[in-house]
Each structure stands twice: as structure tokens, then as C-alpha cells.
């Protein structure tokens, strides 16, 4: 299967400038994604996950959110330089996004089938006829496990999980090369979440769609992702393949803390080992390593110098513990 590089972010910097303050939301974010790959973008509230997604689509809030450095290349197009006209051709067509809180992206007064058709008409680059569009609607509903004879139903007649599937059907209708799903299952029950995740996994196999799955749940990442990027205070502090990160041989202290915060179902622990303290204020980020005020392994150098990226094969960790000579953990 074709697996050329589809998306590459290099040293991306984004600032939200409000009247009162500058929020440094992304600080030199670098990541890449090949065709057909699934990347899990994990991190806690405010880490910059949604901002990363909005930057790729150039949908940062006007006059407030600004790309101040770095580059985004998507399928040969330089997104940072692309005009609004060029972006319109990409959005919904080559890149689709499922927004955080997807229930709000359905129109309550339009039948679900019509909403899928609408998206197809909007991006009708293949010159489909009305009948072909209708056929495609049925096909998409079937793909997400909803009987096409329910296409005249309104969103409120569907359960949460079914609505979520409709949102996915809309996002996939135009065969995008890249789907960005921002916390697509957070609002769902686990049994429904399992259905939606299984379905996304199948779609990836069938359509070779690349997927960026934004989540705060490491369990979900373990289930369907090929690659992982862990974000903290606007930086990717660790990235690698599933095996690199989840074999838990070498991890960033923050990632160790994330694993320690989740009750383990397989091994009983009496006490959780949480990360103390809070995420730093993005308007006033600490010097040196941004995690240092909470890090149990913090050294003097961490307080003054930003760590470089330590690389072994596909695994990257941004931490002085690994880059300091003589300090490499075995």
C-alpha cells in the first residue's frame, strides 16, 4: 500500500493574541504522518491538541490565533502560505475534521441523509450527478453501520453513538486523505465508544485514510494508533511508534506520570502515582524544561536550559535525563 509522507509539521509556533495577553499555545511542534497511518495526539487540557488541528486546517480564530513560525506541508502544499481559496479546496475534501463536541456539528432540523449529501455537493470535485450523490449517501450510511432507510430521520431520533457515526460519515463522504478526529468518543459510553473505534479501525483498513486521533485517553491510543505524540504545554515532549512509547522502557517523566495516574486494570495498586502540581500558565511559561516545576527527576540544568530531543530510531524524547552525558537511563 502507498505510504508516502502526507503531512509534516516543523517547528510550528502558534500564539493567541488577546487584548490582555499572549498565549503561547504551540512552541515548536514537529510531527509527521504517512498515508494510511494513525497518529494518537495525547495530552491534558490546554496542551495544544486542538490548536494543532486548527492550524493544519488554517482555522485558527481570526485576528487572535497566529502562526508565528515553522511550516506545515500537506501533500505538497505549503499550508502556511496557502490562500483562503486554496484552503477551501482542501478542507472537507482532502482533510476532514471531526470537532470536539461533534453533536453540535449536526443541524437538528435537517434529516441526516441530506446533511451527508450537502457535504458531497459542497466538494463535488468528481462531478457527481444527483443520483450518484444519493447513492454515495446510502453507501456512507452503510459504511458506518446505519441502515440507509433511516436517512430521512432527524438527528434527535438517533442515539449518541449513532449521531457520532453520522458525523463520521459526513467527514468521510469525500474520501479525505486525512481525517482529524478531536476527542470523538469522549461523550460516549464505553460500549458505544468501542463500536465507534472498531469502525474507525475498519475504515482505515478499507480506505487507507490517515488519521490524527486527538484524545486524553492512553487506552484508546493503545487500541487503534500506529504512532503516538504526547503534548505538554504546547510541545511534543515524546513521540514514537506504539511500541516505542507503550513498552515503557524509556519514557519522558511526564509520560511516566500519565501512566502512573491511570488505575491499572491488570495489576492492582494501592495508591496511584500522580503528577503533582498543575500545567503551567501558557501566558507565562517556565524557563528551561516546561515540565520542570512538576518533574520528580528535575536537575539544575532543567531549570535553565530547554532540553534537546533525544532520538533512538523512531523514538524521540525531549528531556535532559536522556541527552545529558552519563545520565542516560539504562
Amino acid at each position, binding site marked *: 500500500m502507498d505510504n508516502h509522507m502526507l503531512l509534516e509539521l516543523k517547528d510550528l509556533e502558534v500564539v493567541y493574541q488577546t487584548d490582555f495577553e499572549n498565549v503561547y499555545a504551540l512552541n515548536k511542534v514537529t510531527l509527521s504522518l504517512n498515508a494510511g497511518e494513525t497518529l494518537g495526539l495525547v495530552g491534558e487540557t490546554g496542551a495544544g491538541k486542538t490548536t494543532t488541528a486548527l492550524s493544519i486546517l488554517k482555522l485558527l480564530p481570526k485576528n487572535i490565533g497566529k502562526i508565528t513560525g515553522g511550516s506545515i506541508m500537506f501533500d505538497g502544499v505549503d499550508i502556511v502560505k496557502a490562500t483562503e481559496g486554496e484552503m477551501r479546496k482542501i478542507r472537507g475534501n482532502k482533510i476532514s475534521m471531526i470537532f470536539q463536541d461533534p453533536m453540535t456539528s449536526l443541524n437538528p432540523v435537517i434529516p441526516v441523509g441530506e446533511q451527508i449529501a450537502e457535504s458531497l455537493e459542497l466538494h463535488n470535485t468528481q462531478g457527481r450527478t444527483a443520483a450518484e450523490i444519493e447513492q454515495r449517501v446510502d453507501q456512507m450510511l452503510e459504511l458506518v453501520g446505519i441502515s440507509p432507510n433511516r436517512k430521512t430521520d432527524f438527528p434527535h431520533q438517533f*442515539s449518541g453513538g449513532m449521531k457520532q457515526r453520522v458525523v463520521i460519515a459526513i467527514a468521510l463522504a469525500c474520501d479525505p486523505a486525512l481525517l482529524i478526529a478531536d476527542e470523538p468518543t469522549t461523550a460516549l459510553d464505553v460500549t458505544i465508544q*468501542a463500536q465507534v473505534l*472498531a469502525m474507525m479501525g475498519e475504515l482505515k483498513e478499507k480506505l487507507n485514510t490517515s488519521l490524527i486521533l486527538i484524545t486524553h485517553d*492512553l*487506552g484508546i491510543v493503545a487500541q487503534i494508533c500506529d504512532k503516538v505524540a504526547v503534548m505538554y504545554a504546547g510541545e511534543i515532549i515524546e513521540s514514537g511508534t506504539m511500541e516505542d512509547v507503550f513498552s515503557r522502557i524509556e519514557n519522558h517523566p511526564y509520560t511516566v506520570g500519565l501512566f502512573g*495516574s491511570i488505575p491499572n486494570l491488570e495489576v492492582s495498586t494501592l495508591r*496511584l502515582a500522580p503528577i503533582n502540581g498543575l500545567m503551567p500558565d501558557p501566558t507565562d511559561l517556565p524557563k528551561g524544561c516546561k515540565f520542570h516545576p512538576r518533574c520528580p527527576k528535575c536537575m539544575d540544568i532543567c531549570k535553565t536550559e530547554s532540553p534537546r530531543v533525544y532520538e533512538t530510531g523512531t523514538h524521540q524524547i525531549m528531556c535532559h535525563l536522556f541527552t545529558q552525558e552519563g545520565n542516560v537511563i539504562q
Partner: protein
Amino acid sequence: MNQPLLQTVGLKKYYKVKAGELHAVDNINLSIQESQTLGVVGESGCGKTTLGRTILRLVPATSGQILFRGENILEYSGKQMHEMRRNMQIVFQDPYSSINPRMTVYNIIAEPIRSSGTRLEKQNMDKRVRKLMDTVGLASRLIKAYPHELDGGRRQRIGVARALALNPKFIVCDEPVSSLDVSIQAQILNLLMDLQDEYGLTYMFITHDLSVVKHISDNIAVMYLGECVEHGPKDQIFANPLHPYSQALLSAIPVPSLAARSRKPYLIKGEVSSPINPKPGCRFAPRCPHVKPICTQGELELKEVTPNHFVRCTLYGSEKP
């Protein structure tokens, strides 16, 4: 076994709605021993919150009994209940919506003490509030802060301090960590478990997060559409879930490990039934892969399959141990 601290007998809460009677909590028989935690799990809308609030008499029960140390508190007079309230408290999911945003931390924590009728001199009240803040890990410099100046984790600590203010015996924790980030969630879970050790608190812990419930509970009750379909010791529920719904629920938990990757969840299909005028028999029947005609022919009973492990399902024998 000792007399349970709290027990419900045939507890029901029905709501009258346009389409009929909504069985939010239906015939629940549960008991919790002193200093233990009962975890209550189940999907959205299955009646967890209603069960907790009915037990605390925050909403009136339709029928049944709520026994606190053997006494039916549903028969208590207003005055008796006012006294009883000290013993039974609640911690809510959203720490922001449950506290008054215009009050300072001091007043939020002092409020339950004042409204219980306890008169404390200013000096003693100060001491008490500071002690409570210390207990839940809130720095005393925050005593004059307003909730909006605090993050979610600290707001939830206020919620816990408030619940502890009257030295309760029993606390309903309704999704107390669901809206928090995992690192903060772990801090609050550790706090709740430490408080239990120190003060011998008894918890009913409501959540839809199964890893959390396994971590914190002694016993677990699984609810489905208002009914308890299975309950028992947590290790048995996790090692050997009996009800097909519990099996689906447990297999659907995304586990953050490489080993779990190859495991396929047992997916349930079919529509969720309505809790309004429910049909007789098993409410999970429309989604159950093992459904047989007898499943929907009459009321099912909770059967004790192994000691203390109960299930409401026709797959299991009816012999009494």
C-alpha cells in the same frame, strides 16, 4: 456479616413523564458495610445519579426502604432527617456548578456547618475551616479566594471539604473525578482513599470509568436501565463477569498496554430500550447475544451464583446456595 451501614430494600424512583412512567431506579436491593466502598457503574441514563440522590432523600423515593444502621430513613420526620443529614453527604461531578461562585472558599466550607444549626464562635469556625482545608490539601492562603480563581482539581477539593464539614459517615461520590484531567484525577482519588482510611468513611462511588471503579471499590453494582443486573465483590466482577451486559462493558474498556491491543472488544449491537413503561423481563434482551424466549416472559430475580455474587439473567441456575 455485620449490619450494613446502609441498605436499600426494593428501592424505586419513578418519574411521571408524558409518555408514561419512567423507571429511573427500579427495585434496587443493595447494602454497604461500614468503611467500605460500593462502586456503581453503568451507561449514561441508567439511573446512577437518581439512585444516589434518592438514597440521600434529595429526591423523594417512589417506594421501598432506605435503612441507615437498620433504621428506615424514609419514615423519618423532617426534624429527624435534618439530624440524619450530617451523616450523609454528597460530592458532585462538576465541582463548579455545585458551589456558589459568589462565595469565598471560607464561606463555601463553613456553610454546611452554619446551616446544620451548629453555632461556632468565629475563632472556632476559622479553626474548623482551616483544618478541613488542610485535610483535603488546600493551601490556607486560598481561604479568601473565589472558585473561579481556582482550577478544577482545587474546586473538587472544596467540594470534598464541604462534604466532610459535618463529619459524615456516608458519602455519595457522583462522578467526582470525571471532569478532571488524569493527573488531577489521580490526586483526588488518592485523597478520597486516604480520607476513608483515616475516618472510616463509607462511600457509594458512582462512575462510568471502570478502571477508576476497580481501583476504589470493595464491591461493585452494575446498573442497566434502572435495574441492578449484577453485584458482587470487585475481584469477582472483574475476573468473572456473569451478566452479558457486564461482559460487554468490561471488554470495552480501552486498556493502555501493548498486550491489550490484540484483544477485541465484545461489541453489542441493537437499540437501547426505553426506561419508559419498560417491558417485562430482561431489559438488556434487545441487545443480548444470548437472548431466549424466557428472557422476556416474566420478571427476573437476582440470583446468588457464588457467595455474594448476584446476577439477574436467565443463563444462570436458580438453585439457592
